[in-house]
């Protein structure tokens, strides 16, 4: 019983949302109640499955599903501590985002297609989280591109189609580069499973230049989704999509998939030792540091709320990359924990921006004046997210920055502190004026486009924002608790740096 369970559980967890997605397609546009139930049931079931896997992993089992794709090339879905971190985050945020999206799109057309692909998207993300080798990762990484594209172009306007085109141009080119790196690596080392400490460490230094070039190719492949400079331009453009899609792109799935992939490559394919031996960490850290400053600086000049948030993502995701690129246990903890923290805070911000736009038609920063009096709960959530992004304790962002800074010093890279301080100042510079407008300015006599929203929708959307805002507070406040992301990540990192 247990072996059978261990074999099928990862696949079932991935397929739950895929099946839900297909069922939503088949159910069609009109059966709204059925669709809502399918959505919620799949999301809850997925969370329960992940909890079950989590218990099994904690009990020392390794759930693993494996089929052969080609001779010596397996499709492997496996649950280890790192995959559980990402899987739990996405599944949790997916549930919240689903509730938010159902309310957000209440009267929009084409919802069957939207929620169908939405579910497929999360299935791909689960696949990415549980991929047991780089080829499996690639397969789901591509699936993620394919399933997010219909969401990006969802509204069907000329602007949406254009941003979809940009999205594909970047991601597909990135994946072609990724694929070449993958084939090259496969040729050198075979299709090995991820192992903490690296699968190719024994390949050693006689292949050093091949390995360096492969690393570059893989970084380009992941960097596109992780919005690493100069591969980031698709992300701000994709903000024409509906708010739940932005949440998905920025917090639940897409950029996270890129960052998570880089973590896998560094920790489980190359291994921290080989990365530092080949001298790959520093260039990547510099690229990430540049992206952090660049994204924050550009965010300053955006007048559109969602665009400012998008550039903020460009900057914040690179914290994750910076942490794992610096290397050493403390910085790696900082990077990995930011994977969770950034997701919680950024999804809160996008939820709130969606509410501002949907309820009152407020899309520009200049229109935010006095909105705190009109939508106090939403504004409070926005404030928590923004303060967290700046890194104010006790919100989650502070912990990430603390560990990153301490880790950089420990690894002998004190220049990172300057990057962190500069970025924090820039974060404050582009978030604080918003907060000032929200709370201290007087509201206008009339909002740009106020609509009547039913009480249930309001409850769903504001409730989702409050939930994620509370989460981002809680993971900061309760960081000492055994099940907090910080402790979880610490456990993972001790495996990499015994």
């Amino acid at each position, binding site marked *: 019983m247990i072996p059978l369970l261990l074999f099928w559980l990862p696949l079932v967890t991935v397929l739950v949302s895929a099946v839900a997605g297909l069922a939503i397609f088949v159910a069609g546009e009109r059966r709204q109640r059925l669709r809502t139930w399918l959505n919620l049931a799949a999301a809850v079931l997925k969370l329960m499955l992940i909890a079950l896997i989590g218990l099994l992993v904690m009990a020392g089992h390794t759930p693993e599903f494996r089929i052969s*794709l080609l001779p010596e090339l397996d499709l492997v879905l496996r649950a280890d501590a790192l995959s559980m971190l990402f899987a739990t985050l996405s599944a949790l945020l997916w549930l919240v985002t689903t509730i938010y999206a159902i309310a957000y799109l209440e009267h929009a057309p*084409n919802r069957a297609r939207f929620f169908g692909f939405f579910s497929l998207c999360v299935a791909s993300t689960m696949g990415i989280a549980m991929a047991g080798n780089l080829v499996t990762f690639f397969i789901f990484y591509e699936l993620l591109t394919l399933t997010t594209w219909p969401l990006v172009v969802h509204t*069907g*306007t000329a602007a949406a189609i254009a941003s979809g085109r940009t999205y594909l141009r970047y991601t597909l080119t990135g994946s072609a580069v990724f*694929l070449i790196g993958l*084939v090259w690596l496969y040729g050198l080392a075979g299709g090995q499973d991820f192992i903490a400490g690296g699968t190719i460490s024994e390949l050693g230094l006689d292949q050093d230049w091949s390995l360096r070039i492969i690393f570059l190719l893989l970084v380009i492949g992941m960097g596109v989704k992780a919005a690493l400079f100069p591969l980031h331009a698709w992300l701000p453009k994709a903000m024409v999509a509906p708010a739940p899609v932005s949440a998905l792109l920025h917090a639940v799935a897409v950029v996270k998939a890129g960052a998570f992939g880089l973590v896998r490559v560094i920790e489980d394919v190359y291994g921290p030792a080989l990365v530092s031996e080949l001298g790959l960490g520093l260039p990547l850290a510099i690229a990430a540091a540049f992206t952090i400053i660049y994204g924050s600086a550009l965010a300053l000049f955006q007048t559109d709320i969602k665009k400012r948030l998008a550039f903020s993502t460009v900057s914040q995701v690179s914290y994750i990359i910076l942490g794992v690129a610096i290397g050493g246990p403390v910085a790696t903890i900082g990077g990995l924990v930011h994977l969770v923290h950034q997701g919680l805070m950024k999804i809160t911000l996008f939820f709130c921006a969606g509410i501002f736009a949907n309820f009152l038609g407020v899309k520009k920063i200049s229109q935010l004046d006095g909105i705190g009096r009109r939508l106090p709960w939403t504004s409070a959530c926005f404030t928590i997210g923004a303060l967290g992004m700046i890194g104010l304790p006790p919100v989650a962002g502070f912990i990430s920055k603390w560990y990153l800074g301490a880790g950089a010093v420990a690894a002998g890279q004190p220049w990172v502190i300057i990057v962190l301080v500069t970025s924090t100042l820039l974060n404050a510079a582009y978030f604080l004026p918003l907060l000032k407008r929200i709370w201290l300015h007087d509201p206008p006599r009339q909002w740009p486009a106020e609509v009547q929203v039913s009480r249930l929708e309001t409850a769903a959307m504001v409730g989702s924002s409050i939930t994620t805002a509370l989460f981002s507070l809680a993971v900061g406040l309760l960081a000492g608790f055994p099940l907090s992301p910080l402790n979880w990540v610490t456990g993972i990192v001790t495996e990499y740096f015994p």
Partner: protein
Amino acid sequence: MTEAALAGLVFLPLLGACLLLLVPRQWRTALVLLVVVPLPVLLLPITAVVWQQQAVQMAVAGHALPLGIVWRVDALSLLLLWLNAFLLVFVGLQALTRFPPATPAGLRFWPLWLLLAAGIHALLLSADLFNLYVTLELVTLAGIGLIATSNRPAALQAAMRYLLLALMASLLYLLGVGLIYAEIGTLDLYEAGNLLEPGLLPATAMVLMITGLLVKAAIFPLHAWLPAAHGNAPGPVSALLSAIVVKVSIYIVWRLWFWTAEGWPMPALELFLGLLGAGAILYGSALALVQKRLKMVIAYSTVAQLGYLMLIFPLASLLAWQAAGFHLVSHGLAKAALFVAAGNILASLGTDRLRRLAGLDQRLPLDVFTLALASVSLMGLPPSGGFIGKWLFLQAAWEQGAWGWMALIALGGLLAAAYLFRILALTCFHPRSHGHSSRLREPPSRASLAGLLLALAAIGLGFASAPILTMLASAWPGVIAP
């Protein structure tokens, strides 16, 4: 048992084609089903034998060489036979709705369709150069006849052009056959391979034959007839032409190259053929990007995708062989799905101009979904048959350090994504002012289902590669040690 099955593959459709003209109208549908449905069943005993013995050989009517006809099936021909059977059944499902056998249009269509099936089967069984010629003629002529069943002037014009070029190509091929027969007095593919020594005359013969075949296979730059012919033929015909008919010419080229001309030193020619493939991929994709009609995009995509089948010549390894064989099958399924869906869309809208596809995702969701699934395989994105083919090609190129070919394959995938996503984006495009024509006839659900099943097969192939690769490996003549 096996011999009866082999004979059945050829004679059952032939007989069916003749009977169709004789039986009363109301029996025709039953007759068509009675002929097409058993074809996959006939393949089962043959598959069992080939799996064990790698090849089956049979002298037709007991007459052995040199006077008789010998049929031979190995894993490569078997793979194409399976592909063909699959296509005949599923594309046939759409054809039944487009050309109901009981109607006059059906009477024009189905005998030719069955003749085409018989021709392809006979070609794949043939083991000598002259038989290959005869059967290829049969395939070509039946195909041209099928294009002409569409009465539109553009289709007739395309059929005419195809006919003229095909006849010229046949002459070239026949000339080559004549030269070889004069030299060694046998036409058996394998025996000729043993008897022929590399030299000026055999090389000339080979070049003549291959040139003729490349015209029929529409390999760049000899592809000019294909887009118009495949783009204007009726839906199910386009599907079969693109998915298998052009491939059988390539199949003969492979046979000639790797069996008859085995071990001849021709590095320059290898590279040249590979470069033709590269030209096909780049040129075909570039033109697919600027077409204004859906079926023309798909037709130019065929020009491009056929280019991959030429990469086997410069790469020439077991992996490349498996890659090419796998690509042939996965492209066949995906392309058939695309043409079936495009045919349904064309029949529903009355046009396949790309501009008119806007908002189609809401009006014909199933056909658009089929387009999307088949596209995924065609651009080689995982998980799909196309991805496995691309992966094998990349691996084969990597093994030989052929970075140029690797870049080409990656670029080819990107170009395919560019022209296919262009279509998909249009179907999702909802301009503010909806100018939908109300003239939308929903395609019969059987026709949409046929496309969907083909597309699902193209995707599913990505998970069923092992038996196909094993079979391909057993058919690899092994010019260069794997």
